[in-house]
């Protein structure tokens, strides 16, 4: 008897299994370079629900337990690189350094951690990404596959603003219904109520100054 050792998931095999079972779906292996080495699978939005169903029902995998759902906000990133370009300067061809900026649009990401109670393996980490951070922010809901995702998807809807299609009861769960912002987004601006700060310092000192300036006007 003794303790059953948890088997680490063979992501490459799972990836090929998924691709064999669901034609046309695109699965990408997202490598985690940290010592934990917890790599994950990035699914495409169109086939995600089918893939989830496959992962749950496949007799070899049988991932019957979704332990955790979380959101990540990835801002637009701008990378600049210096490139040497040949240019004509005063009739003479010279090599000139040019800075090229590439802008990668941001997206909202949803991460699922799946385990199998029966097979005692896991976690399998799934990722889903929205098209952007502003208007195309829908992802398929996995609540019909794993009931445990219901409240966590509601929380992600509340705090990150990802809209889950197919969720049975998509309402805010922590903030009130009239609230419009998504506080866990990186560009969230919190209300300034730092008018009274007995011992402000650092970030609070700055906020306190702003609040008192507004207070002074009002």
């Amino acid at each position, binding site marked *: 008897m003794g303790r059953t050792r948890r088997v680490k998931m063979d992501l490459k095999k799972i990836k090929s299994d998924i691709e064999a079972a669901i034609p046309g779906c695109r699965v990408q292996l997202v490598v985690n370079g940290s010592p934990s080495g917890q790599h994950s699978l990035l699914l495409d939005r169109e086939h995600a629900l089918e893939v989830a169903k496959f992962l749950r029902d496949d007799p070899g995998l049988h991932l019957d337990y979704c332990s955790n759902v979380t959101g990540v906000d990835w801002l637009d990133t701008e990378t600049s690189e210096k490139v040497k370009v040949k240019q004509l300067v005063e009739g003479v061809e010279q090599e000139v350094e040019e800075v090229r900026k590439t802008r990668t649009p941001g997206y909202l990401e949803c991460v699922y951690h799946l385990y199998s109670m029966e097979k005692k393996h896991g976690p399998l980490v799934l990722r889903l990404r929205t098209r952007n951070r502003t208007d195309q922010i829908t992802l398929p809901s996995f609540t019909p596959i794993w009931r445990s995702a219901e409240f966590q998807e509601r929380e992600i809807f509340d705090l990150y603003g990802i809209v889950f299609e197919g969720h049975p009861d998509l309402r805010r769960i922590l903030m009130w219904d009239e609230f419009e912002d998504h506080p866990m987004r990186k560009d969230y601006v919190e209300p300034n109520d730092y008018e009274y700060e*007995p011992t402000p310092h650092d970030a609070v000192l700055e906020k306190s100054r702003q609040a008192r300036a507004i207070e002074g006007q009002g």
Partner: protein
Amino acid sequence: MAKGHLNLGVTISWLTQNFLDCVQPSRVASGTVKMDPDLKIELGRQGIFTTTLEELYNWGRKSSVWPLTFGLACCAIEMIATTMARYDLARFGAEVFRPSPRQADLMIVAGTVTKKMAPQVVRLYNQMPEPKYVIAMGACAISGGPFKQGYNVLKGIDRYIPVDVHIPGCPPRPEALMDAFITLQKKIEAQSLTGAERPRHLNADAPSEFVVPQYGAHDLEPAKNVKLWNIIYKTAANGPNTTGEDGPEKD
């Protein structure tokens, strides 16, 4: 005892001199009737119990302050511990925790007040009949505590309702809550029933209900009760070292 005996002769002669004052007590400027406390003690030694309506009334009020059964977070566990046998808040007359705000005198705001919870807290306070008192228990209830820089926690319940006693601590120990309770009893005891300083329930002009904040698009609306805020923080906000700019060398 020895000291008391030595002083007795002196006090009695003094007593006879002041006895007329006792029968016809001198009126203080505020309109309240005050009796010399030494005289009262001395009369007590002679077997004469004297009191005033004000004292009797306040003694009754302070000795049976019924708190509302109301807890918000971990401080509530300490509040419960305070009422149990080991600390026994019943010794101070507060053993009856009322499950209805209509029957409660004291609201112990025990724990983090989230912005989502704040309207309900204010509404419960409004539903309590006068005279009513508030103890803000713990770092969160008095200022937001460790969650102060979060988006979802109210930075002190005194933004919406008047607080009589603030207790710091995270959470405060039962002794701290008992100290706050005794402080509140002292406050009740010292309240005069007439004059400008009379408590709210005897002043028809003083507000008994406070504005219940509404859920807004970005924050609670209003973000604070401005009238209440001005009373509480006007002196504090104008005081030294509130912005961190004025060091002690400037003063």
